[in-house]
């Protein structure tokens, strides 16, 4: 082999090694090609970073009411104005964002975990299917509001004692929202698993003696990831909105604990007087939900092997 040949071969090897084709890399390159998803991701990151680090820069206490400065418009001291008790809206939106996002993400994680677990088990193991789907139907048929009333009545004082008023209510709310919103995911996942487990590659895996848990983890789960991702993104949005409805009914966080939903409800009456009270929390809520949905859309495209590479 001449030097030239060797150099050529080396270059080829280098090129190949430079771009090894891994699943993650494929997914990422497909994801970055989705412009909406990238924009969504950017907006979402800005919001997350903003609510995480914003309160360190804008240091006004969100619950402090400066009574002389109420119903003010936007100014340097109060970038989003103040409410009717003189509380700074920007500080409240930042603080509210922390709570809303945390509730949304955590509740979604709980719902996805239960939904996927039930869906996969019901779809894969025929013996479990009947009972698990009846449980799902049962949860779907439960009237949520009375259920919430009962749960809050039973556990509020215990949790308040164990974790303090705010953390206790947080756990309770996240748990309640999670436990009442996994059913749709479970149904979707079950449907996909039912179809998948008859496919040739699963049959092949089973024929060489792969144990069930490995088939599920290696072959089934990655293929149902896309519906899960889509439910998850929608789930964040629903969880944020459910939380705000709960707070409105007085079942959620204490009234001096701002969340986006509560800020919106409180501000609704003041819409004509200080529009910034509904515009900002509303905008943040919509932007979050929209950006998360776009990210979900991009992820679905990126994760689906049929679409990827086209």
């Amino acid at each position, binding site marked *: 082999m001449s030097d030239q040949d060797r150099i050529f071969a080396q270059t080829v090897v280098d090129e190949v090694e430079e771009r090894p084709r891994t699943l993650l890399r494929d997914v990422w390159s497909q994801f970055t090609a989705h412009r909406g998803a990238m924009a969504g991701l950017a907006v979402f990151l800005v919001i997350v970073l903003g609510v995480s680090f914003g309160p360190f820069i804008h240091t006004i206490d969100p619950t402090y009411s400066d009574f002389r400065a109420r119903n003010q418009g936007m100014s340097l001291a109060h970038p989003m104005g103040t409410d009717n008790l003189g509380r700074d809206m920007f500080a409240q939106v930042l603080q509210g964002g922390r709570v809303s996002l945390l509730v949304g993400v955590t509740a979604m994680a709980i719902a996805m975990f239960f939904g996927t677990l039930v869906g996969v088990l019901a779809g894969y193991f025929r013996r479990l299917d009947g009972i698990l789907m009846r449980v799902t139907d049962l949860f779907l048929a439960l009237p949520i509001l009375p259920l919430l009333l009962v749960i809050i009545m039973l556990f509020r004082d215990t949790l308040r004692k164990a974790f303090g008023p705010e953390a206790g209510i947080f756990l309770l709310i996240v748990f309640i929202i999670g436990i009442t919103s996994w059913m749709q995911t479970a149904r979707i996942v079950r449907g996909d698993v039912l179809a998948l487990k008859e496919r040739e590659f699963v049959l092949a895996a089973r024929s060489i003696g792969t144990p069930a848990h490995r088939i599920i983890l290696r072959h089934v789960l990655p293929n149902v990831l896309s519906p899960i991702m889509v439910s998850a993104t929608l789930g964040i949005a629903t969880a944020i909105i459910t939380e705000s409805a709960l707070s409105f009914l007085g079942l959620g966080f204490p009234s001096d604990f701002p969340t986006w939903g509560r800020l919106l409800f409180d501000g609704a*009456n003041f819409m004509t007087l200080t529009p910034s009270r509904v515009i900002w929390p509303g905008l943040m809520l919509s932007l979050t939900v929209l950006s998360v949905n776009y990210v979900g859309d991009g992820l679905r495209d990126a994760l689906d092997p049929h679409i990827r590479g086209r």
Partner: protein
Amino acid sequence: MKKIGFLMAATALVAAGSAHAESHEGRATDGHLNIIYWQAPSLLNPYLSGGTKELEASSLVIEPLARYDETGTMVPFLVDEIPTVDNGGVSEDLTTITWTLSEGIKWSDGTPLTAADAVFTWQYCTDPESGCAQLSNYNDVESVEAVDDRTIKITFSVPKPFPYGPFVGAQSPIIQAAQFADCLGAAAPTCTDANFAPIGTGPFVVTDFKANDVASFVANENYRDPMKPAFATLNLKGGGDAASAARSVLETGEFDYAWNLQVEPEILNQMAAAGQGTVVSAFGTSVERMHVNQTDPDPELGDERATVAHPHPFLTDPNVSRALSLAIDREILVEAGYGSSGQPTCNVLPAPAIYASTNNDWCLNYDPDEANRLLDEAGWVMGDDGVRTKDGERLSILYQTSTNSVRQGTQALVKQMWEEIGVETELRNIDGSVFFGGDPSSPDTFQKFFADIEMYTNNFDGTDPERYMGNWACAEIPSPETQWQGSNMQRFCSEEYDALVVEFGQTAALEDRAALAIKMNDMLMNSGSIIPLVHRGGVSAHSNTLEGVLMNEWDSELWNIADWTRAE
């Protein structure tokens, strides 16, 4: 409808010919009146519903013998004079009262009103199976007799220093015996026609009633004053919320009158600036107050939680409660939540004027320094985290109320004010239907009071505070034994106070009653078990073209609707 309109016009012409010189021309000459009650009435029989909306709507049609005017004074409606001991209408031993109906009063169907109708009304409400919502107006009534067609004699089983319960005020109007004859007892709720369109002596007659939606009325041709009412037709519409009702009168002018506008004052002012209407308010006996739990609501006490067996660890000390009261700037609470419809108050009994104490006005001076001093003196030491402690107990308060944006605003302000004197506050708000629902199986009712402090508004009907002041007798304490029923929410208990309650029931002279009421009010205030905040008025709005509205908190707001006219 056209026929009725023609009749109206004819009557009006005849009426206009008579000698009355009024601001308006006569009956049914001012056209149509639109009223909005954002909580719509579900029927027009106040005996079957305790709700204010039903009470007010029915006051267009059916009337009591006497009403309270805007100053809380009784004015005769179906009678010529109010019976008293002086004019012989009330017996010396205070056990009977005799009313004489005015001559010639007719029901809207043309038949005469007689004493028998009053007797029937009493039988209707006191029938044990009817579930009458206004039963308390007939307390201790032994009998109601029709002495003759125009004379009603009411006998009480005990001496009644204030015998004006039956047939006085919007809560106990007279219904027609002929119409309700088949509706006694258990049959009462089934008489839909009568409950939706009672025949009355009032200025208007029901023509159409849609429950929880809209009611239509026309002027009563047989109304006793031939010149009134000025309006030929009236619509009473329900639905929406307080803010949209206010807007429909003040900004868009769709309606002439809107009731109960509990909206933040700056929003109401902004709407009023549109110039279509006027906001009116009147003060009755409503006080937004805090009840300070005298018992321990600690969940670890299980079934004995919030019962008198366990006194509260620190709120039974009047000095702590006094410090909490001094640290509240009531002016700010009024400005933020009530505007012209609220006044700072230091009394749980703020009106009528003769019953109002002036001995507690120290609380009007916002004085956090004095509050701090009181707490220092009581041994509460300020900790590093800004919260006072004493013997290992933190000065930490769970403060609950119903869900309502004005109340949550008040909570937030009070929390901050208390922070300044080293009191830690946790806020809780509970849906009003649960909080006030009284369901003994719910832990969140205001009777159970599983919190340290709770805030809400209460008042009393009419002008006599006897029953209201009796609310704080020891026997009224809610407990598991009473299925958590009772009105002594803060569990105040004093033998001396109970003795005063008994004395009140036996005292007749107005001055003595006033002195007793003031003494009782002061006892409650000094015990620190109630912290009054705001004396609240009712707020309504009327169009600038509507004249004659006299806002009234002692009776129905529509009490004088016969005198309302349209400005030119």
